[in-house]
């Protein structure tokens, strides 16, 4: 198969490009090194849809962030992704912070962020009573929001597959050759060829760029951020995303609700040697605890249900780098996508489509385009359904009456569905990210045996062959005596 476009990377940028291009009569392939969509930075981040006042005026980041943020509501509604336009607050503690907040407001207004307002102490505490009493002011950005980042990537990729795109997993690109009519992208075993190539390889964009002979004019620095996730019982700690006033070190540690109703705190920012190093450290957890208490002194960190870390691809230039290679025609770099990459992603997708169009790709809209994740719709989970929808779902399929994950009320119907969706789940982590089974307060203590049994049954494999996330991550070690 010769594709019109080959996308490297199934993170938020890659899947967004696939989604945007799937509307057109094009043959699209996505190659991904991991076993699933959202295997890198997209999986573990703050999940914030930033309003767009952080990025320096005039940068590509500033432009795409504000635009992407505006597009998020409609996009997530179409695809059935958890999103909440909760607003955000940059909290100030002293005169220096106040000055910085004034600067941010001005910058935001230049960038085109709507509704920015500086709150005094009284108004801030009325809005968020748990914010530190020593806070004196805040920048309120009503357009900011929260989203489930990996579910957004799942939705984008499922919609792409439904509209004909092809995904190759476990495809770690090892070479890219120029051919007569395009490029041959290979992982050493298999080769995928296409006219255009989009490199949306996140942390690995620098390595991909070298393969094609057009090294990036900047470095990608892997910076790890650690997080703590709190029980949903703490979900009312704050209604809005709370930031400290940023300084030269970055945006600092935030406290925010998640789109699924938990509270998340983090991240710190530490440069790591390995791009895949998502381990957590005791020092890191202490650092983010301290940061969180600064914003919300009475935050109940004992309600932590898990800690995790993600690595972001920070460009040394601190701006997005999205352009067609000057050396290699029809090769598009989508690199240096750090925060607010998630918020910017819908605009990044449009921006890339525009580049392709200018570069001569013919874009003709499909007449049979399906706007949802599948022909049948968006795979609503039992716990998202209304009473009436639940009754109907159970009547159609009694497996929806069997709760597997008691913490999140995930049913066997949801799990079986996840195993057979357009991008099928075949490990317990894949099921977990699609359904939230095991993501609640018991962290799979009760449901891991049940999910393993369901996966084994649906795939026709022994239970001890079921993996957590592929490779040698088998959950069990054989049968008992």
């Amino acid at each position: 198969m010769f594709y019109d476009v080959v996308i490297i990377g199934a993170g938020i940028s890659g899947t967004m490009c696939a989604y945007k291009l799937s509307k057109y009569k094009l043959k699209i392939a996505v190659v991904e090194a991991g076993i699933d969509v959202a295997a890198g930075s997209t999986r573990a981040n703050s999940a914030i849809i930033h309003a767009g006042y952080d990025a320096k005026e005039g940068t590509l980041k500033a432009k795409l962030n504000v635009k992407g943020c505006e597009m998020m509501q409609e996009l997530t509604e179409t695809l059935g992704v958890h999103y909440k336009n909760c607003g955000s607050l940059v909290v100030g503690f002293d005169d220096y912070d106040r000055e910085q907040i004034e600067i941010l407001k001005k910058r935001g207004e230049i960038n085109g962020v709507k509704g920015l307002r500086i709150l005094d102490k009284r108004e801030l505490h009325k809005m968020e009573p748990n914010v530190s009493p020593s806070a004196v002011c805040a920048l309120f950005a009503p357009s900011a929001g929260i989203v489930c980042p990996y579910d957004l990537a799942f939705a984008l990729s499922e919609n792409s597959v439904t509209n004909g795109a092809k995904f190759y997993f476990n495809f770690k690109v090892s070479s890219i050759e120029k051919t007569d009519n395009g490029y041959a992208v290979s992982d050493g075993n298999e080769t995928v060829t296409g006219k255009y190539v989009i490199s949306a390889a996140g942390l690995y964009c620098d390595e991909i760029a070298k393969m094609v002979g057009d090294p990036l004019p900047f470095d990608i620095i892997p910076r790890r951020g650690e997080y703590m996730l709190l029980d949903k019982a703490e979900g009312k700690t704050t209604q809005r995303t709370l930031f400290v006033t940023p300084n030269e070190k970055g945006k600092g540690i935030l406290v925010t609700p998640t789109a699924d109703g938990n509270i998340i705190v983090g991240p710190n920012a530490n440069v790591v040697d390995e791009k895949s190093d998502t381990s957590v450290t005791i020092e890191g957890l202490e650092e983010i605890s301290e940061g969180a208490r600064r914003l919300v002194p009475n935050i109940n960190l004992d309600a932590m249900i898990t800690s995790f870390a993600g690595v972001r691809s920070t460009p040394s230039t601190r701006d997005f780098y999205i352009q067609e290679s000057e050396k290699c025609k029809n090769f598009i770099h989508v690199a240096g996508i750090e925060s607010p990459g998630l918020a910017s992603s819908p605009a990044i997708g449009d921006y890339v489509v525009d580049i392709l169009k200018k570069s001569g790709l013919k874009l003709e809209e499909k007449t049979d385009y399906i706007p949802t994740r599948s022909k049948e719709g968006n795979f609503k989970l039992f716990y998202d359904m209304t009473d009436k929808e639940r009754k109907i779902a159970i009547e159609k399929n009694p497996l929806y009456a069997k709760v597997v994950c008691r913490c999140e009320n995930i049913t066997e119907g949801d799990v079986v569905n996840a195993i057979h969706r357009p991008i099928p789940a075949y490990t317990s982590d894949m099921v977990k990210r699609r359904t939230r089974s095991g993501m609640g307060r018991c962290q799979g203590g009760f449901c891991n045996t049940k999910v393993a049994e369901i996966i084994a049954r649906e795939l026709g494999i022994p239970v001890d062959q079921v993996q957590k996330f592929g490779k040698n991550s088998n959950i069990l070690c054989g049968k008992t005596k």
Partner: protein
Amino acid sequence: MHKSVVIIGGGPAGLAAAIGAYEAGVEANDIIIIEREKELGGVLNQCVHTGFGLTYFGEELSGGEYASRFIEKIEEYGIPYVTDATVLSVSKSKVIKFVSPQLGYTKVKAEAVVLAMGCRERSRGTLNIAGTRPSGIFSAGSAQRFVNIDGYLPGKRVVILGSGDIGLIMARRLTLEGAKVLRVCEVKSHVSGSARNVEQCLNDFDIPLYLNSTVTKIVGEERVTGVVVSKVDENFKPIKGTGELVRCDTLVLSIGLIPENELTTEAGIKLDKKTNGAVVDQYFQTSLPGVFACGNVLHVHDIVDYVTSESINVGKACAGYVKGLLRPNKTKIPFEISEGVKYVVPQTFNFDPKKIDIILKRFVVYFRVSKDYEKARITITSNGEELLSLIKNNIHSSQMHSVILTKKMAQVIQKNKNAKISVTEEA
């Protein structure tokens, strides 16, 4: 659907409560037990080891045998139950929504509700353990379920963190199934589980126990390849430089149990921060009239025998409520605790002076202490008046204790509107 008594949970607490309610005069058909697993019995079904029933039956039974004694009674009495059924919500007006393949999406209006949902295990996520997130990390209960119900071995080289009874029992169980249990680590300076289990589960199998030590890091990208074990100081903080890498493929966590009170919270019922269970009166009635709680959802018990006796009484109290004998009294008397007491259940009293012994002849008070006593004096006072005072040897913080309140004591408490329990060191 309408029922006099709806029991949420068909484990030992729920079964005993159903039996108690029936024996106190509630019609079998006016009761329903809602159980989320395939069978009644709760976690007892995965406990193939013995040691159950010594207090209640004076016999040593396996978990399954212990459960079956009660399940047989449920069958004999004809008390209805639904399995594979999960309760989604309990409302303030006692409407319970649940789903099950058998009945679909169901609403049941109850006169009295018994919360008997049990507890869950603390997970890795609640601890500050550094490192990666590979496969091979299990809570002791889920490892037990894999071995005893499903017939699979969680791992071959195992480190167990936590010396609670489940941890000790899994050390033996995994050894018997051919795994090598390298060590059991306990952050405290003493074992959490029973001396009997240390002897029979560790010593008999030469499994080393490391006190004052904990797991500080998990190593391994795909499967666990090792854990770092560090010594801790008297505040349970890891001591820098004491970390030792233990090569293993599995980490089993037995680090504590948490009552599962999400439904309770959503119903607006008041919880006790010390027990993580509902605040109850002497009938084990919660802050929502007609809603009762018993078993591990109320407070974590050491042995199931106590769950049974507690829950039978709760069943009786339910019957009293349904018959209108148990009128909610507006003034609740708090049961205060002294410094040496970690918690007490019940936390409040609410006696009806005229009907004190109609439902229960005596009232059991359960408590835990915050430190170990070689010899302790337990006293219950009301406005300084001593109601009860006794000396007990070897009062350990890891064990649950109980004393009995008579009808006479109850009358004094009601009159004085005050009660306090204290535990002091006895010379």
